[in-house]
């Protein structure tokens, strides 16, 4: 999905003005110990442009009330803005209908919703769930909980040394017990872009639904859930210029309708007596209680912002950043890149010979450079590479080539300390 024609890349490279984009992000003007912040941890959480901050302030200062309830002006205003945001998200991922877009608290919440709403109803003893070695803990642990409860079994798609899923092995895992597939679109730890469209088609040919964890894909490339034909697609607002505490679960309407609710409470019901409760229709069936209204509207503003720049332009700039950073880091002695898939998003995981990732992280921080160090909530993946942790630089469209240079100089400086 990120493959861009070379001619287009050169055109965009000349039109994408990173300095203009950076001016939208007030946090990027920060200094850390007197040094300019170099924020290379967007895979953990992205930064927020002034346009989204302003939208949150405008909502909170002039539009806030509870939604779907009262008849007064503010409640109707808040409801319209909240539902308007749902429609923006629908268009952003090209969902067929807005009721297929459910507001959750984030990707983890969205996956747990599918586990409880779909898994607990349709997966039973002896059934098998296919996951991959690359998965984030958030797409492992809920399924393990389900497997333990139901007596189901988890099967795991292995990867090669580059961090690419082995599709032959994936296909061989299918049998008459296979009931569900969960796979991440883009690896948070390695950056690998997985061939999810192909994997979905293979699963569907065997009648198996597929959930895509899109937390690392939605901020970086155009997502088209109809083209992918995925059954569920989960992602988080805070990784794509939006606030924390908000995320999306896309689900095909017919599946969502057949699922049981995840959380019980207000807003998800049509009528309640102590004898019998009738659940609301989708999407409200899955949105119990007062949602994070401001965050949902903020996420709508975030996708407006991203769409105005253009996901293709974003993907192209980030690809250029990744290529340059990869080339530069390869020139450093004793530094090994973990994750060398042919198709990668702008994530650069690396280990430095003789220097623990935590020491790299602290020494880079002293130079104003924010990277993530650790297992990236992907311990099985770290075990696969027989390493305890990596340092990870993850890029967003607001990063510049100059920041890549600062990172490279920072790694050199850290190596000198340990020389």
């Amino acid at each position, binding site marked *: 999905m990120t493959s861009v024609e070379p001619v287009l890349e050169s055109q965009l490279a000349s039109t994408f003005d990173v300095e203009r984009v950076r001016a939208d992000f007030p946090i990027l003007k920060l200094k850390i110990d007197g040094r300019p912040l170099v924020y290379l941890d967007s895979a953990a959480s992205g930064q927020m442009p002034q346009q989204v901050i302003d939208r949150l302030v405008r909502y909170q200062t002039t539009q806030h009330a509870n939604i779907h309830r009262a008849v007064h002006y503010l409640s109707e205003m808040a409801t319209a803005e909240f539902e308007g945001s749902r429609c923006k998200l629908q268009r952003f991922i090209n969902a067929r209908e807005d009721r297929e877009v459910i507001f959750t608290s984030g990707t983890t919440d969205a996956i747990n919703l599918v586990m409880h709403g779909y898994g607990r109803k349709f997966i039973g003893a002896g059934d098998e769930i296919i996951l991959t070695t690359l998965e984030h803990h958030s797409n492992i642990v809920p399924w393990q909980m389900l497997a333990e409860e139901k007596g189901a079994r988890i099967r795991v798609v292995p990867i090669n040394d580059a961090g690419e899923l082995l599709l032959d092995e994936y296909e061989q895992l299918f049998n008459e017990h296979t009931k569900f597939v969960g796979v991440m679109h883009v690896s948070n730890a390695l950056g690998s872009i997985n061939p999810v469209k192909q994997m979905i088609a293979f699963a569907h040919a065997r009648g198996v639904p597929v959930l895509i964890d899109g937390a690392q894909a939605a901020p970086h490339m155009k997502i088209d859930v109809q083209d992918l034909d995925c059954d569920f697609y989960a992602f988080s607002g805070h990784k794509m210029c939006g606030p924390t505490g908000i995320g999306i679960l896309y689900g095909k309407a017919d599946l969502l309708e057949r699922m049981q609710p995840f959380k019980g409470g207000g807003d998800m019901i049509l009528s309640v007596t102590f004898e019998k409760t009738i659940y609301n229709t989708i999407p409200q069936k899955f949105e119990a209680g007062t949602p994070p209204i401001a965050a949902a509207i903020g996420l709508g503003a975030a996708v407006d912002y991203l769409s105005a720049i253009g996901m293709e332009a974003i993907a192209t700039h980030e690809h250029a950043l990744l290529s340059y950073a990869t080339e530069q880091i390869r020139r450093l002695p004793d530094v090994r890149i973990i994750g060398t898939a042919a198709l990668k998003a702008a994530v650069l995981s690396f280990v430095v010979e003789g220097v623990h*990732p*935590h*020491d790299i992280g*602290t020494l880079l*921080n*002293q130079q104003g450079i924010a990277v993530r160090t*650790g*297992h990236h909530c992907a311990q099985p993946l770290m075990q696969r590479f027989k390493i305890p942790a990596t340092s990870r630089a993850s890029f967003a469209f607001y990063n510049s080539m100059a920041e890549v240079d600062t990172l490279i100089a920072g790694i050199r400086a850290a190596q000198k*300390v*340990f020389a």
Partner: protein
Amino acid sequence: MHTKSLYQEVILDHNRKPRNYGILDHASHHAVGHNPLCGDRLEIALNLDGEHIDRIAFHGESCAICKASASMMTVAVKGKTRADAETLIQEFRDMALDRLDLDGQHHLGRLMVFAGVRDLPTRVKCAILPWHTLHAALNSVTSTSTEAADDPMNAPVGSTS
């Protein structure tokens, strides 16, 4: 103390050439410490001769702060009594958590080079893990974790089993 002062020469030196590094045969006490958040893992073995720690060794995989802390800890407690070691454990932990008046009475001496971790909350556990593990070993708890609910650091100091 500024974070820049954390990677001082003495710490880098103990990381490069850790003292008392290896496996101890015929240890009377040992424990494995694990920090699941970063994957650090180290094993401490010691031999008590009466109340004295007459031999001690450690090995494992960890960051420089953890390794240097372990190395300097073994140097500091070797030859000391169990009670003296427990006092140092408590003082080191208090220093890392910024609960110790460094200008007041304590026995940390050179171990004060680790005072800088106070300003780095994410690195405090790296520095404490060896001490945590020593405490577990002295109290015959064979494995410990920085994330354990039954944190042996909360056990009564000097208890035996």
